[in-house]
């Protein structure tokens, strides 16, 4: 059954947009929490733990997101957790995001000049205080622009969840376009909606980076 494109269809897309935003927010939150855990493991004092975190990051960065989401979806079911598609997608995107965010943050910690470590040691701070009072605040500032940049990547990547059964903007685009046969206009509108979400973040991330460069 096809029908001409109507206002109602646009509402369907907007509802999809809402789900895309929710999915992105949940996945970002999950990525930040898991990412911090992976970062802590990567900076562990035990070489074996560091190695495990390293392998985790590189295996995940070499896995296609679509494959990872399906593994989550079917894997959780195998272990007896019959979760909704969006829950599996949120977990999958969080695991995926944690591999990238922990890598970004590790880079930020490394980017703090070596003299800062040495100076804080010379001041007699313990290793915990050194990290908390001197290194972390600086690494945090450095890490903000790429973290916001990664949020854009994550937001775009939520579209992949449409293939694993989550009804968000991309899935609604398929539904609306195949029931109206207005593929061109629907996909143009959908790309426009994604752009409206992503561009302000990209702009903000870039502005943060410029002001950071100026401050140095």
């Amino acid at each position, binding site marked *: 059954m096809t029908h001409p494109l109507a206002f109602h269809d646009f509402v369907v897309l907007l509802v999809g947009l809402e789900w895309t935003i929710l999915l992105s927010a949940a996945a970002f939150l999950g990525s930040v929490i898991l990412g911090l855990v992976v970062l802590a493991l990567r900076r562990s004092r035990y070489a074996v733990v560091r190695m495990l975190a390293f392998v985790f990051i590189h295996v995940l*960065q070499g896995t*296609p997101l679509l*494959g990872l989401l399906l593994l989550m979806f079917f894997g959780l079911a195998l272990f007896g957790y019959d979760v909704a598609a969006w829950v599996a997608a949120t977990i999958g995107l969080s695991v995926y995001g944690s591999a990238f965010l922990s890598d970004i943050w590790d880079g930020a910690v490394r980017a703090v000049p070596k003299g800062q470590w040495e100076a804080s040691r010379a001041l007699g701070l313990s290793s915990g205080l050194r990290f908390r009072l001197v290194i972390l605040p600086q690494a945090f500032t450095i890490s903000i622009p790429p973290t916001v*940049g990664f949020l854009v990547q994550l937001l775009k*990547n939520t579209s992949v969840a449409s293939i694993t059964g989550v009804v968000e903007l991309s899935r609604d685009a398929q539904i609306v376009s195949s029931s109206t046969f207005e593929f061109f206009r629907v996909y143009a509108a959908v*790309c426009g909606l994604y*752009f409206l979400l992503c561009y302000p973040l*990209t702009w903000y*991330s870039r502005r943060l980076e410029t002001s950071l460069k100026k401050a140095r």
Partner: protein
Amino acid sequence: MTYTFRFAPVFNRFDQLMDGLVVTLWVSLAVIFLGLIVGIVGALAMRSRFSLVRGLMQSYVELIRNTPLLAQLFFIYFGLPSLGIKLDSFVAAVIALTVNLGAYTTEIVRGGIDSVPAGQAEAGIALGLRRLQIFFLIILKPAVKTMFPALASQCTLLILGTSLISQLGIPDLFRAASQIDLDTYLSFEVYLVMCAIYVTVVLLFRGACAVIYRLIFAEREPTPLTLIVSPS
């Protein structure tokens, strides 16, 4: 957990996966080649003396980088026929992936050229070198050195991104896996093996990139094996 994993039926169909892998690799290779050309031409266009050309390139880059690859694929494959442009699924996939990769490579190549201090080119002028000589003898090598890791990361993301072309019905590695999934119902096992193949391909690709980098730039320390998710 009472489930027992069964990998044997998946490995019995390993040749199907390999057939899919060949498609994935060919598409990736073609798109990386074309995407690099787009990047070089795009970076030149970004430095054009005409503000209209610069503006168009800027819009292209921003538009592509702020929309999902999946939406771009569907727009080109399903959307363009409404305008009378009917594309074969392979052609549509290669175009969409190239347009996507090209936006990122344009930005990376431009950044690489910009990273060479202006004084270097000025020194070239002072020595009486011609413009092309300055570019090929002075700018090129440090610029490529700067952009190489980012290009390698972007190409890695591209290889993984090709899994989305299965949605256009192209028999790539992902498509082969989902076919085996339909035949055997061993979803978890199939996708696990498939992911392992992707990981292997990506590690080999990154290893090759690291070797090339070392050969060209004779660096003693290897390139860091990290993906750079550049924000800008």
